[in-house]
């Protein structure tokens, strides 16, 4: 459904030297699949996500969604970031309704839809609140609701739970799994947290770099809900860990 073919991204740094952030990466992502990109910081996983989002354009290769070439950002490929996710001058409800507002949906309709998605993340009662009044975990939930309300073809998540404390992160990971089952979506999820990747993913794409390349793609067929303490889970994490240790 989402195809990356031999995608590379080159930057020029301040001295005019070429830096290769992503180098010849090919990946096929299926409909309704949850794919996690893992790797060390600076390995090009976030750049890959930004390329899919259309926030950057590839220097080489091709990215296409349902056969159509990806050009520039659009609501069909919505991103949830780690920080500064919500617009603090808009109420929670107006935040969630933003995508529909941009599509020209009437106020009444978009607010009804926004309430529905707020319900999905369990925050209907915060509709009138403003983002700074919410905890970090609640803000990320609202951000997920806002992205889903825009009804994207692919949901892109860039370490969305990375700034949260461990306990909140656990809760939100469970939430995301529940939402993903309720509202089937194709998700590309970037993280440096191996456990998070194994907990969430159908496939874990282990990346190395720079320049960012795929070290290995691992199928993750463990039954859900996954048990972090099971031998299979730990074994899988260990294998990814070993791959990352050896990577360079």
């Amino acid at each position, binding site marked *: 459904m989402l195809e990356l073919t031999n995608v590379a991204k080159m930057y020029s740094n301040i001295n005019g030297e070429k830096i290769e952030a992503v180098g010849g990466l090919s990946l096929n992502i299926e409909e309704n699949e949850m794919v996690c990109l893992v790797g060390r910081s600076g390995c090009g996983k976030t750049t890959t996500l930004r390329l899919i*989002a*259309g*926030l950057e354009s590839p220097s080489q290769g091709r990215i296409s969604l349902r056969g159509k070439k990806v050009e520039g*950002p*659009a*609501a069909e*490929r*919505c*991103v949830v*970031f780690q*920080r*500064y*996710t919500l*617009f*603090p*001058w*808009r109420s929670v409800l107006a935040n969630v309704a*933003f*995508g529909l*507002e*941009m*599509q020209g949906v009437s106020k009444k309709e978009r607010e009804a839809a926004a309430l529905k998605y707020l319900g999905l993340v369990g925050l209907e009662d915060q509709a009138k609140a*403003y983002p*700074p009044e919410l905890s970090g975990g609640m803000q990320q939930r609202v*951000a997920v609701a*806002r*992205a889903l309300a*825009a009804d994207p073809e692919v949901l*892109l998540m860039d370490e969305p739970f990375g700034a949260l404390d461990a306990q909140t992160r656990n809760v939100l990971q469970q939430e995301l799994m529940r939402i993903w089952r309720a509202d089937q979506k194709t998700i590309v999820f970037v993280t440096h947290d191996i456990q998070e990747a194994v907990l969430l993913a159908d496939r874990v794409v282990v990346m190395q770099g720079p320049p960012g390349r795929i070290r290995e793609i691992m199928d993750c067929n463990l039954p859900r809900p996954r048990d972090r303490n099971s031998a299979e889970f730990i074994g899988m994490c260990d294998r990814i860990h070993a791959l990352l240790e050896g990577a360079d």
Partner: protein
Amino acid sequence: MLVLKRIGRQAGRFVLPLALAVLWQAAAIWLDKQTVLPRLDAVAAVLLHPTEKILITGSLLENMAISLLRVILGFLLAVLTAVPLGLAMGYFKQVNRMVDSTVEMLRPIPPLAWVPLILAWLGIRGVPDVFPFLATSPVWSGIQFSTLIIIFIGAFFPILLNTIQGVRSIPREYIESARTLGAKGLPLLVKILIPASLPLIVTGLRIGLGIGWMCLVAAEMMPGSSSGLGYLIWYAYELLRADIIVAGMAAIGVIGFIMDRGFRWLEGKLFWGGMG
């Protein structure tokens, strides 16, 4: 006890002004020279009768009103040009490259250094000279373009610089989130760029209005002026009426203070200002 403590803390605000007033009054009585150091009761007499005609220049209130009207017009002119230019310079690097060095060369020139040139260009032309349909109202005939331009120059740069800074300090994530939610063009400007930079824009407006107000009073001392607080002070000087001079200065101070507080209150309302 707590109430007393609170009253005591609030009273602290008044200690210094009260001490200064007492000192002034004592010095005025001791010196006994009204043309140099007027007694405060004489100043208060002017301030407490704001609707009474002063000399031949109209009442204090009328002069305040014309000064305010001038500053608001010049300020609006600055807002309407500096905010759009600032948004463009903050968002588009190319626009910034084209305009920045010109702005930075014009900015250090004090607004009052423009006075002779602007007088040479515009003379004492009033608003009705250009818009004849306004000539019927006596209010407009007292407003000269040269005055408005001086206020405009004073207010323009702080608004421009703060707007540019406001756009630049928007976290990248706000703009990128909005774009991946389908925002572009005008909606992106109106729904994201402007609200996200509003806290700093308002700071620019506050500083701009303050500087505009300072320029106004000086501009009203220019030739061709026949009303306004600046003119009132100058005219009172020629007649050696120091009580009116001080009353006029006090009025300028109070109006400036109220405008500043108004904008500070607005800045406080924009609570996301601290989040960028």
